[in-house]
């Protein structure tokens, strides 16, 4: 088991190193002629107005919250799914009630309009 994680570790290093080395080599080969116009923020030729790190809609935050709820919940469900074949009916009904509560929460968010893209 530990050796599997060793492989994952080595593979991660390789997966990061391959593109990094390629970009480094390309950087050596590529011409470097910077000038202020070339480095300006690209907005289809129009000069940028004001700060570029602008304020963002609250919308994204709401979706992130909804995502967080469902992601944590599905991670909670994975151990249940692994044990599913050995579980008695009681445990399955428990999980179904858990899912039903979540579904209720989803419908609540829906009715409140949190899931509408404005």
């Amino acid at each position, binding site marked *: *088991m530990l*050796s*599997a*994680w*060793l*492989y*994952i570790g*080595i*593979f*991660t*290093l*390789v*997966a990061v190193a*391959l*593109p*990094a080395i*390629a*970009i480094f*080599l*390309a*950087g050596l080969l*590529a*011409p*470097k002629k910077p000038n202020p116009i*070339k*480095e300006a*923020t*690209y*907005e289809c030729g129009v000069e*940028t107005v004001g700060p*570029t790190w*602008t304020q*963002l809609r609250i919308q*994204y935050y709401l*979706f*992130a919250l*909804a*995502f967080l709820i*469902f*992601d944590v919940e*599905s*991670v909670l*469900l994975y151990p249940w*799914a*692994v*044990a*599913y074949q*050995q579980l008695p*009916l009681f445990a*399955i*009904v428990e999980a*179904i009630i858990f*899912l039903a509560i*979540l*579904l209720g929460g*989803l*419908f609540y968010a829906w009715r409140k309009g949190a*899931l*509408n*893209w404005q």
Partner: protein
Amino acid sequence: MTAFWQDPITFLRLWLENLLLFWGVPEGWVLVIRYTIGAVLLATAALLFVILQLWLERKLIGRLQDRLGPNRVGPWGLLQPIADVLKIFTKEHITPAGADRVPFNLAPVLSVAAALMVWAVVPFSATVFGAELNVGILYLLAVGAIGEIAIILAGWSSNNKYALLGALRTVAQLISYSVPMTLSALVPVMFSGSLNLNAITRAQEVWFLFLAPLPALIFLTASVAEVGRAPFDLPEAESELVAGYSVEYSGLKFGFFYVAEFLKAFTVSLIFAVLFLGGWRGPGAEAYPVLGFVYLFLKSSAVYLLMILLRGTLPRFRIDQVMDLNWKVFTPLALLLLMIIALVDYFLRGALPLVRVMVLLGVNALAYVILDRLLSSRERLRRQPVAQPVRPVARPENLINPSETGVAS
């Protein structure tokens, strides 16, 4: 000892191990050397495969759109992607003024790494797999999230409003679609009782596609959205967001975002084939593991061709349609299906396999019919505008106004 033609990769692995042990290398180092060679070979093969894939996709999309596609460089244009790679390799790397340099350079690397790292756990045949992780699916989901971090990094560090907006919109889409994806990936885990991808493959006496067609459909659609391909290609909506999070990138850094996208596209078809289409399983795959490669490749290619066909035929969705499809159709449907399948499959535990397949197929078909009715009734209830504005329709007979030109129609 297996014969070479039965399982060439295991054969070579054993040969290498014995050779190193014979040379007196300690056993732990043999493992490290073997893993390093395996990882470098697999990652390089995956990246080289992208070159072939680029050609295939451009050619097929060309044919779908009634064009020829690349046909100048090499036979059937086969060398076109190589020419493109060489060209992009020598292009200047422009770093925009005011960019945050560390995340700006890290983003393309991470985005490729995230797509590559999935390949570490895919079982390619009965005996050949990177790592047999007992938390395989959780690893897949976790690694998938690294790609989203790369997109946020790219958008945030570019010092460009469009890049930032594009990145946030992309991430909103990606995290939303990972919810039904995670939920429908629970179904194969339930059927096989394991998170290990190899164990899931072994458990598919019957392909899980036939036991759970609707979760498979949700998983496939969600993974197309996860990759950000048409019809879900809002991340690179050229007409609205310039090009999204990759506006300020040039040269190979820009190229790597595209490499990551293509690699991810094949990776999700690979994952779909493993989870729902039986992975390397097929006649003779246990005895001759080399056949497993062929089966897995055929299955994932079929899924990939389906994705190309989708890209060639469907127009792009609007962002609100994408979000509605996810949160108002897929997520509740995935939750409901999970409940129904959990309950139905409990009562089918002792049943014959054929009965089990039939009942689960029936349940899925019923759920699909009910969903279809619900959606179409909602469509009918939707309010129509009171007065439709009268606009000329762009038809040949309307293009020329006879009163203006004086031409009698």
